């Protein structure tokens, strides 16, 4: 048996390596998401300095993003980083001792700002003013390469203007610099698209975001709501609302945002993609931030428990779920804040309601298939309303209360129009003819731009008149 060598050490070093945070942590997040993390910090700054609710809680607050070949800059007037938070704000990870300093903050894990900085470049200055303190913290390439020094230099500065923060990152990594220069059109457009959807509610509530001097306009989901004679049939969304035992406020609405597509439209889309973007699917919002936008997968209940898989015939269906909590740890989000924690119990409970609501509209679409003109008329009676207006309208609806179900709450199940003719007496006729011939027959009926399905129907009606 070989002799063993005794170990002299009493302890071994298990301290994290700085390079791990710098190179590994940043791989878990896209560049766009890391910029959104910085915007999240702006919004948290607003909530810290003015945590009042109301319709426009973010009014007067701004964030400007500048993207250049060797510069990323974000400046805001959102209250700055309080000096008493410096020991948390600049550390990696959340100190378990740290208490929440304002309700509803989304920053929870303590990595967003640092991860964004490390993702982009080797040099950074963070200048901030909050009430009586104005200071600047610098991160340099030397600091990043030094595995043993964790302290960052800080100095007083003279700050002019409202309380806020400026984060300036230079000496960008070449892959980041490429996005801001050679790929700038694509990157900027994509960033704007993400901000306009993921920050839609916050922007609608008054926050102003600019990218390279261009104001971002919010893009929200709007559902058709027929306000006439609420007790009768009409196109309105399915609505569910509750406050859970954990004090999470949930509001869900699903319905139509446009008329269901005609068969022709579906066929055209099959042959070649006609639209590059669609508003169909589920949007999930946590404390005003959109964490999932227009999802059409199993994540949001499509293709599960009796709900059909998403197909182009369902492009008219859209839904929104809003989760709101003073404790962000109760929300079904991941560390990236744009990811949904689909296994969170609260989400699984609400998902049942999402499927229940969605099924009403997939059924309607199937029932009215082939009679899209009629359903178009029904939908045109309503108007497209944003979620906050649907919330207001829901006050006037007669809601059913459930208390012994998986998720107790109040819900409104719309009474959607049903086709008058029983489906079994009607049969679909479809056939394929050359385009040029269809146009010729359409011209015979007096309008060469007639839809092929209309041409077919007119031909049938003509012959039927003779035959009967």
């Amino acid at each position, binding site marked *: 048996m070989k002799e063993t060598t005794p170990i002299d050490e009493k302890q071994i070093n298990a301290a994290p390596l700085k390079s791990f945070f710098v190179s590994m942590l940043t791989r878990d997040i896209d560049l766009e998401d890391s910029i959104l993390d910085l915007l999240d910090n702006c919004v948290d700054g607003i909530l810290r300095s003015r945590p009042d609710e109301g319709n426009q809680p973010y009014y007067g607050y701004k964030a400007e993003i500048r993207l250049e070949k060797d510069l990323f800059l974000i400046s805001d007037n959102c209250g700055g980083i309080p000096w008493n938070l410096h020991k948390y704000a600049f550390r990696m990870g959340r100190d378990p001792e740290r208490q929440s300093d304002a309700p509803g903050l989304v920053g929870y894990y303590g990595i967003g700002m640092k991860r964004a900085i490390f993702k982009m470049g080797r040099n950074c200055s963070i200048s901030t003013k909050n009430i009586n303190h104005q200071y600047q913290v610098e991160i340099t390439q030397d600091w990043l390469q030094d595995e043993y020094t964790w302290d960052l230099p800080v100095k007083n500065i003279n700050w002019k203007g409202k309380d806020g923060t400026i984060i300036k990152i230079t000496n960008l990594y070449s892959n980041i610099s490429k996005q801001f220069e050679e790929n700038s*059109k*694509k990157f900027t457009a994509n960033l*704007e698209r993400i901000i306009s959807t993921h920050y839609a509610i916050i922007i609608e509530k008054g926050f102003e975001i600019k990218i390279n001097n261009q104001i971002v306009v919010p*893009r929200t989901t709007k559902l058709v709501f027929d306000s006439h004679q609420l007790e009768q049939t009409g196109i309105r969304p399915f609505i569910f609302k509750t406050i859970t035992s954990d004090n999470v406020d949930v509001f869900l609405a699903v319905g139509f945002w446009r008329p269901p597509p005609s068969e022709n439209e579906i066929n055209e889309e099959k042959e070649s*993609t006609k639209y590059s973007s669609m508003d169909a699917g589920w949007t999930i919002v946590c404390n005003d931030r959109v964490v999932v936008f227009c999802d059409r997968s199993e994540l949001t209940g499509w293709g599960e428990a009796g709900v059909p898989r998403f197909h182009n015939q369902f492009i008219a269906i859209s839904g929104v779920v809003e989760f709101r909590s003073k404790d962000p740890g109760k929300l079904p989000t991941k560390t990236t804040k744009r990811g949904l924690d689909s296994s969170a119990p609260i989400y699984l409970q609400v998902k049942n309601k999402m499927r229940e609501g969605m099924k009403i509209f997939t059924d309607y679409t199937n029932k009215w298939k082939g009679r899209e003109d009629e359903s178009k008329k029904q939908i045109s009676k309503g108007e497209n309303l944003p979620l906050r207006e649907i919330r207001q309208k829901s006050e006037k609806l007669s809601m059913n209360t459930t208390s012994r179900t998986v998720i107790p709450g109040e819900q409104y199940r719309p009474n959607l129009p049903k086709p008058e003719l029983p489906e079994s007496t009607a049969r679909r006729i479809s056939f394929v003819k050359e385009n040029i011939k269809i146009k010729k027959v359409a011209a015979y009926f007096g309008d060469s731009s007639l839809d092929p399905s209309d041409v077919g129907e007119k031909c049938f009606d003509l012959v039927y008149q003779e035959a009967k």
Partner: protein
Amino acid sequence: MAGPSYHMRINKAADRFSLIEIIKRLPKLKNNLDEYTYYGFGGPFLEDMRLIYEFYPEIRMISFEEIRKVFLRQKFHIPCGPEQLTLENCNVTNFIDNLESTDEKSIFWLDYTDLDLICFTDFEKLLNKLSQGSVIKITIRADPRDYWIIPKNIENRRQKSRMIENFRRIFGEYLPRPSAVPSWKSEDFAYLLQEMMQIVVQNSLSADITNLTFYPISSFYYSDSTWMFSITGIIWPRTDFEAVEDAFKDWEFKNLVWNRPIHIDIPNLSTKERLHLQKHLPRERPRGPVLRAEMGHLIDEDIIRTEYALEQYAAFHRYFPYFLRGIP
């Protein structure tokens, strides 16, 4: 498309001739013209094939035409032998889908009459398949009236917002400012389409995956009754912009850095007027006032418009076709 017949559109003729000018400069980039194959739509009279054969007989040509009766008409108008020009009765998207990536050099003219998502996706696919030194010209409908109306009442306003929403749904992936309402002035709309093309380029030839990029060489917008936008560029190493700059530095209509497209708006002039003006050309800008003085009469509503029209004529006079009555 309504308007004058295909081969008699004077602004389009200038745009077409600009391609001839670009091909002329390709040897400056150490490209032999006999290495190239030209692919184009040709139309019933194979106008661009006729022109390319006339100037560059060493370039092989392939025409794709989807409509059978136009294809048969093309066979009648073929300007050269089949060893030089192949006529294909096929759809351009299928043609691109089936095109194998090759090191051979190509000149593609995607000459669409409409504005559809497929124009952008075809261009995107093609950028990925063609080799360094290949030239792509893409022409698309650029008529803002397709997506915009003047709102006169509530119904109009609703219709307008529906049209804008529809535009966003179709082209959202390629819009440079996806959340903004686009400007519907012809020149702004043409520039928007150019920015969308730039996004296609950055998608397809992204700086993080390849050193090849698509440098624009020229971009124009014009109307021969319908607004069109046309951009031509070359697939070339990102790090060798100087070579492209050098090859096209002497060309008046170059647009190498994605500047706003140039307006082609050639005035209608009689042969007699043209021959008179031609005696005073070429000359340095501004040419409008000098030509107006030489002409002695107005050719448009007032002095400003006349001088603008004559400036346009001076710029494009070499590309301006003569339409003469002949004995068949």
